């Protein structure tokens, strides 16, 4: 049919009916699978739902909802579209440089270092951090918990193999992040793919975890929650923030994404460590 691939071009949030449909869809997902996307920022989740609708080839959200409720495989595919997965190895060199220069000296004083990457997507960030910790000689006493909502993303993350198309960008990012070695020391490049070395995967634990509904699981020295909070509405953001805070040891480090920042009113118990790179330190007792 000709109208199958019609994608609404105007902003869906402005349309009441569409808003209701999106909400119902998210409600259905929560009821059926337990994934709670309901607190996400309406405009952003609306856009992504419509992206998923376009990819599914269905005509309307009602049909998509029906398919998601009846076909778990379809849901897994759609979940990838609904949750945000933009990441790359050493994607933000300045950030990693700040970690190296500002955070690592502190981490050296801990006998065991727990790092939690909340919303690790396909794992690039986790491996970047692992490489950094190895170069700083801290990897052996580090444990990286990389969690994400999407099981499919986690599967890919566990493989540790990434397309080497933007190898130049990765090498450049690695260099600018202060990497003292060559990237080859940590990864093998062949057949247009980049495979992280096995030794780097040892202390990374990939796990499915829902920031919204699941509880924190341990005391962390570092928590990454980059480019996750922006997709959450205000209430949800605050709740997740409390969780991250609860998980951090006193003096632990919280790393947010470039467009996320701490509430300016100081009600969150963090001090700025490298505000430009969005690295904060937990103050006060747990």
């Amino acid at each position, binding site marked *: 049919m000709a109208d199958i691939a019609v994608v609404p071009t105007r902003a869906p949030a402005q349309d009441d009916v569409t808003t209701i449909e999106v909400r119902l869809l998210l409600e259905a997902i929560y009821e059926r*699978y*337990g*994934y709670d996307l309901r607190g996400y920022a309406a405009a952003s989740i609306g856009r992504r739902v419509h992206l998923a609708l376009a990819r599914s080839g269905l005509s309307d959200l009602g049909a998509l909802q029906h398919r998601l409720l009846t076909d778990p495989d379809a849901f897994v595919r759609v979940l990838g579209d609904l949750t945000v997965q933009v990441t790359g190895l050493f994607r933000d060199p300045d950030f990693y440089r700040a970690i190296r220069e500002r955070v*690592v*000296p*502190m*981490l*050296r*004083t*801990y*006998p*065991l270092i727990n790092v939690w990457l909340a919303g690790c997507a396909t794992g690039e960030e986790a491996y970047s951090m692992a490489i950094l910790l190895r170069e700083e000689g801290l990897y052996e*006493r580090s*444990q990286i*918990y990389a969690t994400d909502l999407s099981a499919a993303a986690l599967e890919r993350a566990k493989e540790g193999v990434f397309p080497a198309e933007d190898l130049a960008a990765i090498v450049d990012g690695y260099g600018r992040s202060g990497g003292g070695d060559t990237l080859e020391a940590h990864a093998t490049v062949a057949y247009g793919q980049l495979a992280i070395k096995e030794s780097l995967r040892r*202390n990374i*634990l990939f*796990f*499915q*975890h*829902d920031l919204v*509904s*699941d*509880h*924190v*699981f*341990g*005391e962390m020295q570092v928590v990454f929650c980059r480019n996750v909070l922006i997709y959450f509405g205000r209430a949800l953001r605050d709740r997740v923030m409390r969780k991250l805070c609860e998980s951090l040891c*006193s*003096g632990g480090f919280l790393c947010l994404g470039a467009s996320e920042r701490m509430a300016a009113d100081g009600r969150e118990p963090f001090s700025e460590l490298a505000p430009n790179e969005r690295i904060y330190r937990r103050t*006060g*007792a747990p």
Partner: protein
Amino acid sequence: MRVTIRSKLAAIVVAAVLALVVLIVGTNLIANRMQAELETIQGRYLPKMDLGPRLEADFERARRAFQDAVGSHDLDAVNEARDRKGAILDELAAARDFLDPAQATALREAIEGYFTTAFDVSRRLVGGETGEALVGAMAAMQAKQALATDRLKIATRLDRGELREAFGTIARTQTTVGRVRLVLSAACLALVISLAVWVGSGVLRSLGAVDDGLRRFGKGDFARPIAVVSRDELGDVAVQANQMADSLRQLMAERDRRDWLKNAQAGLVRELRGELEPEEVATRAVRFLARAVEAPAAALYTADADGSFRLAAEHALASAGGGAPARFRMGEGLVGQAARQEDLTVVSDVPTDYMRVRSGTGEGAPRAIVLVPLPHASRVVGVLELAMFKPWSEGAAELVSSVRDTLAIAIVVARARAATRELLAATQRQAERLAAQEEELRANNDELAAQEEELRTANTDLSQRTEELEAQRQTLAQRNADLDEARVRLEQRAAELTTVSAYKSQFLANMSHELRTPLNSMLLLSNLLAENEDGRLTPRQIEFARTIFSAGKDLLALINQVLDLAKVESGHQEIEIGPVPLADLAERARRVFTPLARDKGLAFAVTVAAGLPDAIPTDRRRVEQILTNLLGNAIKFTTKGEVTLRIEPAGADARFRRLDLEPGGCIAFVVCDTGLGIAPEDFERVFAPFEQVDAAADRRYGGTGLGLGIARELTALLGGELQLRSTLGAGSTFTCFLPRRPPAQLAASAGPAAIVEPSGAQSGRGRSPAASSPKAHASGAPTAAAPGPGEPFLLLIEDDPVFAATFGEVIEGQGFTYLLATNGQTGLRVARERRPKGIILDVRLPDMDGWRVMEKLRADPSTASIPVHFISALDASERGLAMGAVGYLTKPVTRRDLVSVIEALVPRAGERSARFLVVEDDAFTADSIVRVLEAERLETRRVSSAEAALAVLSRERFDCMILDLSLADMSGLDLLQALREQQGGAAPKVVVYTARALSRPETKALEAYAEAIVLKDGSSVERLLDEVRLFVRRFQSGPGRDDAPSRGLEPAPPDVRFEGRKVLVVDDDMRTVYALSATLRAKGIEVVVADTGKAALEALEARSDIEIVLMDIMMPEMDGYEAMRRIRADARFGALPIIALTAKAMKGDAEKCVEAGASRYLPKPIDADRLLALIAACLGGAGEARARG
């Protein structure tokens, strides 16, 4: 008179204005007159000129009107023409003003005549009359007409002469005006010009003078002031300019002086520049200053180390006859005196023979001597002396004052430089010496190396020996363990024995009482019989009755004594403390025992030593009983010789078994006899009940053998000690030591509340014997006379009265009061109602155990926050601490332990800052830590070994310990364990600060003891400081409270119990592990911990007695799913209950856990009640399951 320029100018203006006004007014007056003339002409002549023609025309018109009327024969028209006369006359009347009145009257008459005539004629003509008369009338009429016309002309004619005269007047007036104006103007002008010339010339003269003066000043010539020529503004200017010139002159003088001063100062600095010897400095300074102030002679004295002043340099003094003295002491001479004060000393009018300054050309006496002390850093380092020819000028004084400091500093610096140079030389010499020594050392070193080699050989032997020693040590340790075990068994046996003994005493006490009742009847009756009042008995029967009576009395005495002993032993003895005069005791002994001794032929003496108190506080009856027993015993066993009682101070050499006794605090009652004596091996036996040393003696001397035992018990009861010294065959000495002051224990038996008043309360104690008896405690009532409401106190829940009394004494020693509860129920009630500061809790209690009490305390919000310290013979500190106790102390305990218990319960945190103990063997590191802490204003103590740390910690209380793990004498972990054993929950918080790399297990082990672990790497100092600050903040917000309870989960229901069950907790997050362990241990569960799935499997392999597993899911190495699958894969663990704990709460997670093998599933955060309920459910069924498996 002063006339200012301004007023002169004003005068000119005023004159000019006045002249102008006169001019204007004059001219005006004349002009007015001219105007009046003109108006006259206008008013008189002009209307006259108009009136002539007009009257003529009117008259003509009237004449014609008559003609016309006649012509038309109209009578009416005639009348009408006649009426015209009125108008003409009116007009004539109006012009009366400017007509000549005579002429006007004539004119009037002429006109009236004409009209009369004309009317008459006209009327007659109209009437048609003709005749002469008429013609005559007509001629008259014409005559009248001509007359009227003439007169009219005369009346209205202008008078030319008159007119000319009027104009002539006007022209004259005008000429006068012009003349007056000219004269006035000329006068004004002349006045103004003359004034201006006068003022101008004065101003110019003054200006000239000022200009001249200012030019001079500009050239710098201030000598002559400007002459003041006028007394006006310019005069003022001249005066001001003169003042300015004065000021300028002064300024320039000042500048010159300053320049001179500055040049001189700079010159001196230049002179003293460079590395100069002190002498050179002095010489140059003297030379320069003498020249600068133009002093013919000068000298500089500098201070030596001994405070005297030495001549360092002179200027032209050698010529002054004999030179200057080389040295002054402080205060000696002018120089010495000057050194004492800070200011300059100037001696003027020097006598001519004081000193003379000579030159080639002559000599002279100086006029002034100036002494300048040179102070530096509140010390005078030198004195400068200047001899002056000139009087001492202010400039010179200023110069000298200003360079004093410079000079002093130069001297000090030069000296310091000289000293440095000296030191440098010395250092070089030392360096050379060191080089030589080093050479020697090297030789020694070689020697040592050789010796080391030898030692190594010897070492090998030693290590063998060490191994042997190690084996021996192990054997010893084993034996020690055995001994410990035996000790524990013995203690238990002893406890049982004590109980049995108490029962026995109780029984005896009851029995004796029962026996006495029938015995009394028997004695009464047998006595009656023996008296034989009826006389019916035979002497033999009387003898029998007497025997019965005597035997009965013996029996009664025996029973009484048994009863006494039993009472003492069972603790039923009542003590009544009161002042007992020693003289009374002596008197009574004398009275009672002198006859007895006499009967046996023995000497008996009682002596009371001097220097004793008149009375001692004790129980009179008991003391008498003791003395009676001792003396009775002595007399009984002595056949010849003497028995003495001495009351005296205890000898300084006395030794006591009781720790609370000391010789100075005791009075000795010494009973000496010359009897049989006792062999040392029998010393103990004589005190044992029913024992006599020689079985045969029993028969010889009769008696029960209870006396000494009772005496000893009573002595102990009174807080004293009974001692025996004896030699077989040479008599015995029993010494009863009694304390001068009743012991606390005695007081304790009267109830803790009474301890509050240690002196003067003896009678008070005696009054409440019931409260003091253990029976009263057993009834469960807390002891009476409690601390006042609101007064802080401790609650002691303890059923052992002796321990309670001891502890009570310690508590009071620490300045607290306390309440005693002898069972759990009472304890709980008191805790709820009275809110003690802290609770000391025994585990074994008669009604419910301490665990239970603790649970109830924690479950009740009103008591949950009261700190609790366990003290028990049961070694279960882990469980106690897990329940949230401040500490756990295992009996037996020392006094120091008890003090630390109180300190742990009632920390005085509010009154002080946190105290830190730094345990670090590297002095440099320790130093830096201490400095960091002290910068935070924290009280810090540092030690360098574990042993020292333990020692310090046992003496003092610290809040936080910063611990280096690599100590020489003990590993950090061992230290922490030892500390936990020593102090339990009262141990300080620990921050481990170490350079050692820690393995994962090591870290986890340390985390059980340490608040934080900081590796000496990266920004470790910063981090250490963070942790310290964090600690301090917490310390301040919650002073001294242990946070163990907060670590646990929610309080669990107290009624579920799992004594001795074993649970494996698998979780990699230490927080969770602590929380779970605390909750479980509080329930009596034994907890085994594993931090990964792999470790869990190993733990299960190693210990077969684990009954349940709590399994976290997200773990490194092996996650929970995998671990559960592997556990289930092992047939042995097929039915082992596993509770999965997971942070994940999504749908499907539970199913996943169950699939992997979990029996149950619990989401985090963990709810303690649910967890315990689950464990209860699992354990309930699992026991059977495992039994079947």
